[in-house]
């Protein structure tokens, strides 16, 4: 189910990519469908790992390596669709709570040790 927060999610994901990959650009500089890898953003495999980890932390969605990761990380659109489809929250919908888990806010995880 995709609801009207889809666009808000995409904006949040752009912010996540910028923050995690330490890019000196604005959210408006990333289009929804441009290639994240092999495109003008010039991201590499380390960036991919960084993004996947942040997505897991913020949205609870684990992106496995290999072809699946390549597909999910192809563009902001693809990433948003993956998160919506695989979000552990009810019905696969993106709720306010998950969208508000934007970069910068702390998501509680299992305490180590």
């Amino acid at each position, binding site marked *: 189910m995709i609801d009207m927060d889809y666009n808000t999610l995409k904006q949040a994901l752009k912010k996540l990519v910028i923050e995690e990959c330490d890019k000196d650009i604005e959210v408006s500089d990333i289009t929804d469908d441009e290639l994240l890898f092999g495109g003008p953003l010039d991201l*590499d*495999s*380390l960036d991919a*790992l960084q993004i996947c*980890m942040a997505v897991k932390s913020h949205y609870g969605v684990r992106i496995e*390596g290999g072809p699946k990761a390549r597909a999910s990380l192809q563009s902001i659109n693809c990433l948003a669709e993956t998160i919506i489809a695989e979000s552990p929250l009810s019905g696969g919908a993106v709720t306010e709570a998950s969208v508000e888990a934007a970069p910068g806010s702390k998501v509680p995880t*299992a305490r*180590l*040790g």
Partner: protein
Amino acid sequence: MSLRPCVIGAGIATCLGGDVEENLYALKQSPKQAAIIEHHSLTDAERLPYHLLKGAELDHADKRLYQQIDQVVSQALGEAQLNDEQRSKMALFVGSSSHDISVSEQLYKQELISSKEPLALRLSSFGNIAGYVRKRFSIKGEDFSINTACTSSANALLYASSMLRTGQVDYVLVLAVELFNDTTALGFNNLELLTHTQMTPFDKARDGIVLGEACGALVLTRKEPEAKEFVVLGGANLCDTHSISSANPDGSSIAMVIRRALDNAGVTPGQIRAIKAHGTASLRGDEAEAAGVLQVFQDLPDVCAIKPYIGHTLGACGLVEMILFYQTILAGFIIATPGIASDEKELGLKLTQRHESVGSGIFLLNYFGFGGNNCSLVIANGEQ
């Protein structure tokens, strides 16, 4: 016969055992799968094989670290049989990628529980391990703590040998240390470089690293070597800026450092009897190493890998794999990994499948690490 940096004492502790004999015995068999680590820092999804030191318990990091250091340094100094003055003037080289971070982690965990003002990284200074070794073993010479990721102790050995060759010092102690710590275990896990099964370098089925713990110590001096004594003929260290996490897969930077090491040692590729590969069983790492080796060697000598036995011991692998390698040569065989990379179809090289017998010779040891740091060493024994 000229004066060369010559090994006169060694000590080692790995998952195979706490001294040279135990390690040699295990190396005459086949690699064993590592136990799955039961450590509270790893969640269920992250339970991974890890080659822990034999008989060691993971808690009490400080006691563990310094006990292991005591053990290997005592072994090496015991074999070298230096007098007090010689020992006092030794230069000390410590190679590790994590140094005493395990102790810092333990301390911080305790403070988080019991202190009103917990302080992360209270023992932040470099040189803690060197300081301990100096005091414990009454060494007053220069100390160098080197951190170049996986090539740390290889570089430590390279520079220690250089100091001997240039007459800066008469005796050196090189110490390699790499013990389990949460930062390294979780860090590697999150880089998705680890396998959940076993390390199979250069093999079609390779899918990553099993981490391992190890400590090693070597004492070297500049002397005319006796027939069985191993010497460090030379080596090289170069930085590859292709990527911070892997060497150029076309092999060019690895070929360059190998050639530089051979030149430094004054030998040609044709004189190399066997190669100890770095062999991390990572997709790109092995590809780069195979490509590099094949560019240098028209006729490939025997190639062996040690990590299937002890895991990737990171900063310690330089010294520890060198010790295991030369000890097996002295015992008359080259390390074998039956069933791993048994044909050249995948990357153009295969690993030794049987314990090939060997006498004296000249050998190439490869080490490559994060930050593009590449190091190759050339060692030899016998009349070279």
